């Protein structure tokens, strides 16, 4: 069963819930945070195409 390990977003009002949330100021920071978290967690980043990315353990 897949599990969301982290949520990274540029829009604080769009995200809330159980997984840790990381906020980014712009596209570059969003990409950098997603990259780091993917490598740290050995999980996969997915793009929800609305300024939010999630890190999922498959």
């Amino acid at each position, binding site marked *: 069963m897949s599990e969301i390990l982290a949520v990274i977003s540029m829009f604080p009002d769009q995200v809330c819930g159980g997984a840790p949330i990381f906020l980014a100021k712009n596209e570059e920071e969003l*990409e950098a945070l*997603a*990259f780091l978290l*993917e*490598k740290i967690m*050995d*999980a*996969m*980043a*997915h*793009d929800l*195409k609305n300024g939010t*990315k*999630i890190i999922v353990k*498959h």
Partner: protein
Amino acid sequence: MIVLLASHRYTLGIIIGTLFGILARLSMLHTDYRQYPTYPHGRIIHISLGVIAAALGSVAVPSLLEKNYTAITFLALAAQQFRDVRSMERETLTKIDQMELVPRGPTYIEGIAMVFEGRNYLVIFTAFITSLFTVLATWYWGMFIGIFALIISRQYKSGKQLSSIAKIINAELRMSGPDLYVDDIYIMNVGLKESQNKIRKHGLGLILQPINANAKVTLANLGQRQAILHDVSTILGAYRDSGEPSLIPLCKLDLDDGRLAVFIIPNDRDPEKARQVLMRVPVLESAVRMPSEAEVNKKRKIGW
């Protein structure tokens, strides 16, 4: 020498039977790109077991002719022994599989283990009939039948290949934003720009078109799909490392028409070579289903 031995019919039968049994095992022991059985110790294990199987098969004939029927229970012992070979192979491969970048999958492992057991029975069969004809007729008849048995064993050695159940076409791999497609089949969502670029640069896409309803079911089998990915990654290399799930090769099915999209990231990016490799992937025995053989489907043409 043979003239001398000819006076000892049973001894000659056992010797020729065992020799042909061993020859059968050697001809079926083939370490190819999979490097399995491993060289040299894996091979030594299987050659030794082959010698035992050959001896058992050839000794059974004199004991039967001497009306020593209890000796046949020996064959039951042999069957037990070779079932153990199967579970030994299964165990080893399952353990090794945990450390593979692209695993074989349980269905492929079961297929390999089954082959090892089956080939030992073919050795017993070869040794038995060679020995039988040597004892009942003469040594050259025994050898003639032995060669015939070797040919039959080789026939049963290998199964079908993917090219006999599917048409394999090179397809376009494209990224639409973070979404990865092979032709029109959705594969996955790749979140990182870096991974997207790597996939664009190194990825390859192929489409497998099943030729009939039976092939559709086989291609849909998860074990068969994993075997495809493992074989391609073994031969063309896998451009990935541990903890990189975004670079994992994947197979996805088009539910409407049963086509299978294969997405791979090989080290050697050669679309034609990848197609050739896919054509030669073995069709796993355990993945084969024959819905067309069912009574309900025989009455009318199946339309799926």
